[in-house]
C-alpha cells in the first residue's frame, strides 16, 4: 500500500530535551520503532500527551500529535478517536499526569474501552516539577512534599485500571527494549483501551527506584514474565513458580519437571479479573513483579459502539434530511 516506513520516519526535527540517562529516551526509541512496524499510514498515527517530562514525547515524534494540558490526554484522545475512528491513537502520560490530576479520565477511559494505547511512564514521582510525591510514590520515600517520607498509600496501576474495567494491562521496564516493543505491538493489536505501565527511571529524582526489579543482578529473581499459555515460572534458572493456594497466589520452588504441573498457566484473555489483579499486585520482596501482558480481554470497543449506534440511526432515520427535520412536527404557513 505504501513505501515501508522506518524508525527514522518518526523522528521529528526537535531536540530531545530529557536529562541525560533518563529512561524516557528508550521508550521514545521503541515507540518510534514500533510505529514503523504498525503497517499504518503515517498520517493516521496520533500521539497525545498531557504535561510532564514524559508528556514531552509527542514533540519528538514526526506524527500528528497534541501536547495537551495536565491530566487530560485520555479525554482528548477519546474525543479524537470518536471523531475519526480510523486514527491509530496513542496516549503518552506520566504517573502524575494520568493518576493524579488525570485520574478521572483514566478510570473512565478504562471503563469505556475506546480503542487506544495508553503508555504510562511510571517513575513514581513528578519529574517535571522537580520531585513531588505522585500517586505511585512508595510509602516512606522522601520527596519535596514529604520531607519526612511519604505517608500516602500508592495506587497499584494495574489494580486500579482493572477495577475500573480496563481490557488490556501490561507492565514492562524501560530497560527491556525487546519486551517494550513486544508489549506495544500487542497493545496495538488489542482492540480497546490498552494500558501499559512502563517502570521508568528518573535519574534525577528517583534514580534506581525500580532497580531491584529491573536491575541486571536482581531482575531474574524479582520479575516473572507472563506469557499467554505459558507456566508462570521465573528466577535464575527458572527455579520458582507461582501456584494457587485457595484464592491466593503463592510462590513455590520448581525442583523437578513434575512440579511444573501445579504451576499457574497464564491466560490474559479470561474475562474474570481476580487472577489478573492478584498478578498485577505482586510486589517484592515476597513475590516477583509481573511483567508482560497481564490482561488482554477483548470485547466491543466504545468507538465501535458509538459508530454502530450512528450507523443504526442512519438506517432507521427519523428524518431524511435536516431540512426535513426543520419542517417536521407542527408547522404553519404564512402566505
Amino acid at each position: 500500500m505504501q513505501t515501508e516506513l522506518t524508525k527514522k520516519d518518526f523522528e521529528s526535527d526537535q531536540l530531545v530535551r530529557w536529562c541525560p540517562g533518563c529512561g524516557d529516551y528508550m521508550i521514545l526509541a521503541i515507540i518510534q520503532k514500533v510505529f514503523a512496524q504498525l503497517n499504518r499510514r503515517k498520517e493516521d498515527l496520533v500521539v497525545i500527551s498531557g504535561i510532564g517530562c514524559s508528556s514531552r514525547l509527542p514533540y519528538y515524534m514526526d506524527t500528528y500529535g497534541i501536547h495537551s494540558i495536565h491530566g487530560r490526554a485520555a479525554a482528548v484522545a477519546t474525543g479524537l478517536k470518536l471523531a475519526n475512528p480510523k486514527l491509530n491513537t496513542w496516549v503518552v502520560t506520566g504517573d502524575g499526569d494520568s493518576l493524579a490530576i488525570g485520574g478521572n479520565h483514566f478510570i473512565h477511559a478504562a471503563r469505556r474501552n475506546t480503542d487506544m494505547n495508553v503508555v504510562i511512564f511510571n517513575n513514581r514521582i513528578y519529574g517535571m516539577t522537580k520531585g513531588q510525591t505522585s500517586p505511585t510514590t512508595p510509602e516512606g520515600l522522601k520527596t519535596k512534599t514529604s520531607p519526612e517520607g511519604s505517608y500516602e498509600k500508592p495506587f497499584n496501576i494495574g489494580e486500579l485500571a482493572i477495577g475500573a474495567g480496563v481490557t488490556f494491562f501490561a507492565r514492562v521496564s524501560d530497560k527491556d527494549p525487546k519486551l517494550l516493543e513486544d508489549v506495544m505491538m500487542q497493545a496495538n493489536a488489542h482492540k480497546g483501551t490498552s494500558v501499559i505501565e512502563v517502570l521508568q527511571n528518573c535519574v534525577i529524582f528517583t534514580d534506581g527506584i525500580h532497580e531491584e526489579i529491573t536491575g541486571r543482578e536482581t531482575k531474574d529473581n524479582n520479575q516473572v514474565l507472563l506469557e499467554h499459555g505459558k507456566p508462570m515460572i521465573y528466577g535464575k534458572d527458572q527455579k520458582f513458580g507461582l501456584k494457587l493456594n485457595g484464592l491466593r497466589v503463592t510462590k513455590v520452588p520448581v525442583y523437578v519437571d513434575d512440579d511444573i504441573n501445579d504451576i499457574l498457566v497464564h491466560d490474559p484473555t479470561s474475562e474474570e479479573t481476580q487472577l489478573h489483579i492478584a498478578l498485577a499486585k505482586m510486589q517484592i520482596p515476597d513475590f516477583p513483579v509481573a511483567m508482560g501482558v497481564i490482561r488482554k480481554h477483548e470485547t466491543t470497543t466504545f468507538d465501535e459502539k458509538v459508530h454502530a449506534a450512528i450507523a443504526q440511526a442512519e438506517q432507521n432515520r427519523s428524518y431524511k434530511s435536516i431540512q426535513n427535520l426543520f419542517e417536521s412536527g407542527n408547522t404553519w404557513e404564512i402566505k
Partner: protein
Amino acid sequence: MAENVLNPTMRKAVIRFSGDSGDGMQLTGDIFTQSSGYAGNDLTTIPDFPAEIRAPQGSVGGVSSFQVQFGGTEIYTPGDKVDVLVVMNPAALKGNLPYLKIGGTIIADNDNFSRKNLKKADYVTNPLEDRSLEDYYIISAPASTLTREALKDLGLDMNSMMRSKNMFALGIVFYMFTRPLKNAVNFIQKKFENKPELVEANKRALKAGFNFADTTEIFGPSVVIPPADLPKGKYRNIDGNTAIAWGLLAAAQKSKKSLSLCSYPITPASEILHEVSARKDFGSIVLQAEDEIAAVTAAIGAAFAGNLSVTSTSGPGLSLKSEALGLAVIAELPLVVVDVQRAGPSTGLPTKTEQSDLNQALFGRHGEAPLVVMAASTPSNCFDFSYQACKIAIEHTTPVILLSDTYLASGSNPWKIQDMEKLPEINVPYFKGKAEDWMPYQRDPESLNRYWMSPGMKGFEHRIGGLEKEENTGNLTYLPENHEKMTKLREEKIRRVARKIPGQKIAGAQQGDLLVVGWGSTFGAINTAILELLEEDHYNIGYTHFNYIKPLPENTASVFENFDNILVCELNNGQFANYLKMELPQFSYLQYNKIQGQPFFTSEIKNRILNELQGLSYAN
C-alpha cells in the same frame, strides 16, 4: 369593577395556563401556541416549571405554568402581565395571580377548589367565592365534572379521564379567542398517533370546553387577534435549546464536517445534548463526558481530528472549562462553547435566568487568551447564532463562546424555517497548496487564521500544544519577542473577526438624547419598551442591541457617538457596561441592572428609560 382588559379591538393578548405539574399545562400551551401560529399571529412563549423535579401535588411549589403572548403585531416577549389566567387548582391561582392584569380574566376549574386543595394552597376561604377577586373577571367552570361526563363511555379509568381536563380548559380559551378547533385536533392526532383512545378523549374534552363556553352566558365578547404582518414562509415554534442544536447540525452539514458534541449535563443546557443525542441519524457523534473538563478536552481532540466540535454547558461548567479553553486559544483550533447561562454565582439559582457569565466568557482564563464571544437574543435566533458561532470558529480557527440563557433556552417563538440551501457557506480553511509549502502556524494574511489540517491528511503531520509557539513554524520557543508577537497576533486575529460581522443597527431615533444598549436575551423586553415609547412619541431614544460582543462590531463607536447618553441594560451587576468602558472609554455609560433571576419586564425598562430622560431634562 375594573374594566375588562379583553376587548374586540385588542391587537395582542397574553394567556397563562397554570396547574399542577401533572395537569399537562405545557401541552395545553403548546397547542394554543400552535393555533396562534396558524392564525398568523406573532408570538413568544415561556414556561415556568417548579424548581423540584416533582413537588407535592397541589402545592404552590408544584405549579407548572405556560405563558404565551400572541398578536397581530410583532411580539418580542411573553408579556409582563397576562390578560387571561387559566388555573386548574387553588395553588395555581395563588402562585400566578400576581401576574394577572387588573381587569383580567381567570378561568378556574372550580371542581378542584375543594377544602383540601384550598388548604394545600394556604387559602382559608374559597377565593372564587369570597369576593377577594373583585378586580378580575372570573369564569368558574366545572372542568373536572364536565370532562368526566364527556368521557364517561370511553371506558377509561378516572385518572386517565382527569388527564384530559386541560383540554376542557383549552376549549374555553379557543372559544374566547375564536379559534377553529381543527388545529387543536390535528395537533392532538399527531401527538397521540398510536393511542386512538387518547385522541378521542382529548378531542371530546376540548369540544366540551368549547361548548361550555359557547352555551354559557357569562362571557364577554369573544376576541379575534388579527394576523401579524410576518414575512411569508413556513414557520414553526422553536425554543432556544432546540434552535442551538439545529444550528449545530446545519453548520456541520454545510461545512461538510461531522459534528462532535462533547458535553456534561447541566440545567439549563442539557436539552442541547439531548436533542443532538437523538439526532444520530445525521451522523452526530455525541460523547456524554465524565465531567466538563473531559467534555471540553474531548472536543479539542475532536477539533484536532477535523470535526466541527462543540461543548455545551452552563456557568459552573464554563468555569471548569477555563483552563482547557486556554489550550484551544493557543492551539488555535475551531471550537464552539455554548454557555446557557443561569442565575447566580456557584450553584446559585439553577433554574433562573441571568446574564452574569459574560465576565467569565470574556476574561475567565489565565494568561492572555482572547476568543470570540457572542450572544443570541431570541429563542429562534439561537439557530442563527449557533450557526454563526460554528462558521466563525471554523473560518477563524478559534474557540467561540456563544451565550444563551434560561430565558432563551426554555422560551420559544416562531421560527421562519430556514432553507438549508440558502444558509451562508462555511469555508473550511484548508491549506490549498502543497504540504512542503505549509507550516503549522502559518496564517491567512487576511484574517490571520491558521489552516486547519488534520490527522489523515498526508504530509501535514504536526504537533500542537499549550506551550508558546514560534511564529509560523509552531516550534517551541522561549524567545521574548516571539511571545509578544504571538500574543498580539492572537488578539489581532480575534479583532479581525469584526470585519466579517454585521454592523450595529439602531432602532428608533438614529441620534438623540438617549441610546439604550442591550445584549443577548434582553432584546424582547427592551425592544418592546422602545416600540411602545416610540408610539408614545418619544422620538429622542435610540436602541442598539449587541449579538457580537468580542469583537464588537466595527461601527460601535460611531453608533454611540450619535447620542448624548448611553444606558446599558443587563441582567447582572454591570458586566457589559464595564466591558464597554474598557473597549470604548471615550463614552460614559448609564446602567440599568437587574439581578433577580428574572428577565426584564417591558414596563421596568420603560420606566427606567423615562426616569433617565427626566433626569436628563432636570440636568439641562
